[in-house]
């Protein structure tokens, strides 16, 4: 991504002046899409988050107040926020570990087999999110293969739906492809002889990863964390279907505020908070990565 943004101005400079207008014209559709579908709705939500709510009909009444944000400090909301952050962090961690191992495995297979393995990772991604979630209900629910196999083996098993485990499994399944791809991309760029060199120099599996592969795929790892952590904060279907809806996430709360409580300003405020949290986490992760690379440079010096 950074490469394309870096080359764009260079190309603009090289282009003759009469081409500039055409360039802007070509940009227009993209700009229109972003303005109409991203910036305008976001501005509407931002405005609503400061509005007074209509206690009788729902909807907004205009005006300006900080009340909507202040009310979010209520322990009930704070707890949901904390739980969401925790679940997002847990999912990001699980996806990172599984995704890293999978990416390493795929990148070390013979070149002609790698595309097939990647396809296997992508295929679930092409299915609808809801379908995938329901699939887990069937797999882990009563009468499903998990219960039957466990009982056949003599274990006293019962349905795993609803449970935290089912939520985590389903989240992992949903986000694994986006965790695998960035790491795979960085690993592909690593000279395969480095692995042999490391083992030749006495490094075992863990040392090879800790000293060579993890540092060299750090950018991919960072992207992978962001691409799993941030979207998990906005998830709301999975906890309802597989977690029994007892522990709502921020996403569920926003849906509830908008639809059941008909309190649009508070829903909007909550949305803005989530947005800020997402941006903050992106900033924190990028910052950590930068710090890490500076530290490794210093240590080397």
């Amino acid at each position, binding site marked *: 991504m950074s490469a394309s943004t870096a080359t764009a101005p260079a190309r603009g400079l090289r282009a003759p002046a009469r081409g500039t207008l055409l360039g802007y014209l070509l940009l227009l559709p993209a700009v229109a899409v972003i303005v109409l579908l991203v910036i305008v709705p976001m501005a509407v939500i931002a405005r609503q988050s400061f509005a007074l709510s209509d206690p009788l009909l729902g909807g907004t009444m205009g005006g300006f107040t900080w009340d909507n944000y202040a009310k979010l400090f209520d322990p009930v909301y704070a707890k949901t926020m904390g739980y969401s952050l925790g679940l997002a962090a847990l999912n990001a961690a699980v996806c990172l570990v599984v995704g890293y191992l999978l990416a390493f495995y795929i990148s070390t297979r013979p070149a002609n087999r790698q595309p097939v393995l990647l396809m296997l990772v992508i295929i679930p991604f092409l299915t609808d999110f809801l379908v995938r979630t329901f699939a887990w209900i069937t797999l882990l629910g009563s009468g499903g293969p998990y219960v039957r196999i466990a009982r056949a083996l003599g274990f006293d098993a019962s349905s795993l739906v609803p449970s935290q485990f089912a939520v985590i499994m389903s989240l992992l399944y949903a986000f694994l492809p986006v965790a695998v791809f960035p790491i795979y991309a960085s690993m592909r760029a690593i000279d395969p*002889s480095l692995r042999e060199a490391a083992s030749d*120099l006495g490094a075992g599996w863990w040392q090879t990863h800790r*000293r060579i592969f993890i540092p060299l795929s750090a950018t991919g790892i960072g992207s992978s964390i962001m691409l799993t952590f941030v979207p998990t904060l906005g998830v709301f279907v999975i906890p309802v279907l597989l977690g029994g809806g007892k522990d709502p996430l921020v996403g569920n709360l926003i849906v509830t505020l908008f639809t059941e409580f008909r309190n649009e300003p508070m829903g909007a405020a909550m949305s803005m908070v989530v947005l800020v949290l997402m941006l903050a986490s992106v900033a924190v992760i990028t910052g950590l990565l930068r710090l890490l690379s500076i530290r490794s440079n210093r240590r080397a*010096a």
Partner: protein
Amino acid sequence: MTQTSAVRLRGITKSFGSNLVVEPLDLEIGRNEFFSILGPSGCGKTTLMRMITGFETPTAGSVELDGKTVDRVPTRQRDLNMLFQSYALFPHLSVYENVAFELRVRKTAKAELDRRVREALALVRLEDFPQRKPSELSGGQRQRVALARAVVGRPAVVLLDEPLGALDQKLRKEMQFELKRMQREVGITFIYVTHDQEEALTMSDRIAVMSKGRVLQVAGPTEIYDAPNSRFVASFIGSCNLIDAVMSSADTVEVAGLGPVPATVTGGFATGTQVVVAVRPERMTLTDRPTEGSFAGVISERVFLGDEWTYHVKTGGTELTVRVPSGETSAALATLPEGGQVWVSWPTAAGRVLPADDTTSPSLIGSPA
């Protein structure tokens, strides 16, 4: 040597599927020896080396290091290091940390680690910029870092996979002497894999010449050059006139169109056997008048190479290559035009009789590495 051999291969074989890459072979490499494995690309030399390091598992046979079988010992526990063709330096680590890698993995104490890293960097004459990243180094410097990294843990054996391949001609020559000096200084067995005969001849104590998965000859550089045991070895190392001939008796060879030629017969060839007589171009003498035992011929081409003249001379049905050092060209010879009459001769000791047909015929092109 039986007691102290650093590496010993017994009946080692490797095949990939139905493709036999290394035919069963026995090989012993002594301690502190500079041993080269020389052959064209695709001859199996890299596979042979990778079996010693443990990167490849032999299909059959076993590898012994310092008298102990290591067939079940993984690479990281074998007392050897490899210098990779691509150097395989860790790009995110500095020169210092690259060299220190093995010592850090083996949890060497800090003071000891620092001392040994500096020692290794001094050995390769790279003390000046330990903080630089590999990307900030020249090819020659990268290679020195790789070498320091390979010797810092004081392994018994260092294997070098065509290490000079990526360097320019001048640097290659310099590094050849450097490598030899370092090998003597550190007292480590070097196994040097190359397709460059000059490198092998300059540095090695002994050379194994490989072709198509077979080791044809193992001997010192002078013996390999002066007494090749096969057509392939004669033609792959240096240049050589290979003259088709027939054994006319137990100790005389006859060339069609020339009659009996001077040659030393070593192997027992039956009368009537097709053979080749191998004569190095620089062992031949070219004169502008007949001498005793010389063959008349015509200059078909001559090329000036600075330090020598290369003549192509047609005698009988055979085209011979003769090298004459620039200073030794007589005035009479120098003025002879192409097409001029000359006489070629060589001493009996210079002609070696070899089997006409190596069971492995030379193939310098083709087969992938």
